[in-house]
């Protein structure tokens, strides 16, 4: 049972980690908690269900399931990234010189707007999607990993590796790190801040879109409200790992998934949502910068 709970926790944690990356990257650069980020994930889940439904209707899923899933992922990433890009340009950029609270409130506004927009266009009831994978899975050591769980864990790990390579190896990655360290200095050495910020939002939204599609397939159920809980959990994961730190978000997400899974089975499933926040409070008291975060020094 322990191994099974680890598998469950890893699946959930991978999704949290993917969403948490978007929070942490934006915070690293703008020091803004992008509350609309959970809604991007929700949009991704909706589009995932709609596209998969469309592909089933035209018969593509029965022709090649892999192809239709890849196509869904690509289209959803493009769609959500353009949402992320547009939201930044419309709601955050005009407020970049405003007090720090203003973009935060703007983010909450965007979040409420997107929720209600989806509720009005897609309806308030749950959207259901039939299972594509059946209950195929691999049994080992009295545990069971379903095909979808394996796919989620592997895909999330691959995406995170690519992201890590991008940030540490490429010129753009270097620029992102530079802007995160000091915006003014970065612009003095010729980095276009606006481009870097846009790229950050595009990447973050793309990751949330991938998480959304995976969840849509995994649970087969989407409603306009899922972005809220997922967003809060992912934000917790980001803070847990150290907000602003990319490895921290990955680590925090996985850790949160494991805590929830193990807590729900060994202590009580009734307080599943509470474990994450209890851990958060403890971490904030003992190590406020997060598990992998660097203690920030006052800039001189």
């Amino acid at each position, binding site marked *: *049972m322990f191994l*099974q*709970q680890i598998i*469950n*926790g890893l*699946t*959930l944690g991978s999704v949290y980690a993917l969403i948490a990356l978007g929070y942490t990257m934006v915070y690293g650069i703008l020091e803004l908690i992008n509350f609309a980020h959970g809604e991007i994930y929700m949009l991704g889940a909706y589009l995932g269900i709609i596209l998969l439904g469309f592909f089933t209707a035209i018969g593509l899923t029965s022709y090649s399931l892999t192809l239709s899933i890849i196509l869904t992922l690509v289209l959803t990433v493009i769609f959500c990234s353009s949402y992320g890009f547009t939201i930044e340009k419309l709601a955050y950029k005009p407020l970049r010189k405003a007090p720090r609270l203003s973009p935060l409130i703007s983010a909450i506004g965007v979040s409420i707007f997107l929720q209600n927009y989806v509720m009005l266009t897609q309806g*308030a*009831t*749950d959207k*259901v999607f*039939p*299972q594509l994978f*059946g*209950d195929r*899975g691999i*049994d080992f050591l009295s545990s*069971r990993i*379903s095909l979808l769980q394996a796919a989620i864990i592997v895909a999330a790990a691959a995406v995170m590796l690519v992201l890590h390579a991008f940030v540490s190896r490429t010129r753009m990655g270097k620029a992102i790190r530079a802007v995160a360290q000091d915006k003014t200095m970065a612009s003095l050495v010729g980095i276009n801040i606006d481009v870097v910020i846009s790229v950050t939002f595009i990447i973050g939204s793309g990751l949330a879109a991938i998480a959304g599609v995976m*969840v849509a397939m995994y*649970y*087969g*159920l989407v*409603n306009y*409200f*899922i972005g809220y*809980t997922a967003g809060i959990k992912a934000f917790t994961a980001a803070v847990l790992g150290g907000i602003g730190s990319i490895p921290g978000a990955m680590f925090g997400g996985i850790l949160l998934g494991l805590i*929830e*899974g*193990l807590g*729900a*089975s*060994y202590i*009580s*499933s*009734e307080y*599943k*949502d509470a474990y994450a926040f209890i851990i958060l409070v403890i971490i904030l008291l003992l190590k406020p910068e997060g598990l992998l975060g660097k203690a920030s020094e006052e800039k001189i």
Partner: protein
Amino acid sequence: MRKLAVIVAIMILTLSFAAGCRKKSDTIKIGVAGPMTGDQSKMGMDFKNGVTLAVEEWNAKGGVLGRKIEIEIGDDQHDPKQAVSLANKLANAGVAGVIGHFNSSCSIPASDIYNRAGLPMISPGSTNPQFTEKGYRNVFRVCGRDDQQGKVGADFVTNQLKLGKVAVIHDKTTYGQGLADEFKKALGRSVEVVFYGGIVQGDKDFKSVLTAIRQKGPELIFFGGIYPEAGLLVRQAKESGIKAPLMSGDGTIDPKFIEIAGSQAAEGSYLTFSPDPNNIPSAKGFIKNYEAKFGQIGPYSIYAYDAGNILLEAIKEAGATDGKTVSDKLHSGEFSGAMGKIRFDAKGDVTVAPYVVWITKAGKFVEHWKP
């Protein structure tokens, strides 16, 4: 220019006030309260359609006490806080009685408000025992109670299926936990409860609790709750390799349950619910009229229809719309509804509450076992 704007604004305000204090209308209003929006809106629509049909039939015969009947629809969004504010709103709107609410967690706090206002309230769907246990004279329900429902489920598991081990989960709501507890209490000595616990309503991931349940090897999982969670539970139980069937109550009997679970996974799930209206002779006319107007009947359409008829019948017999007289009439009278003869006991419960066990077969609910 500015002065003009102010004058226009004042005019608009006065006009809207004037519209607000219309003359007292000479129609009789009855309230319909339930979840009209949100994920349980289907149940709300059943309420609305059932009562609408009843009222239209009365109006075609000339209304009640010589006055036409009007419906005031209210949405409680299955939120207890909304339910209380809606109850206040309906009481202030001067309705003669209320058909509602659906969720026990809404009906119970709302009943306090209706009791204070002296309004008769008939719920077509709240099955929690607490609802009629407050000693209010104005509270009624046309459906059964969870203790009766849980008993039928437990009877089926103990004596018909003759199982030895069951797991019991609930969604921590008044309805869900109430039903699960009544089921657990009524189980025979031969049945062991190997797991008992709650989940969070609105959660989507039950893998960890299901893994813990799988470890205990129950032969059946009883779930007290509503269909979105029940559907996900069945789906994820099959994914986690659990073979035991799910059993649940009337909150799960909705086509969406099968849709969410997938018809393969839902196959063989048991549900306790009232008998199929299609098998009740007195319901023939109702079903024909309802389906001609609104399409297929929902699980609560017939309850709402009967509740509406009973309220209007009581008003007619009482010869008044005053809440106390109508409530007294409801307690003393015998009413013939689409479901058969209905009488209320001193608490406001129906004297005979028939529950049967249904099963999911090939993507449909069918009657399976009568106690």
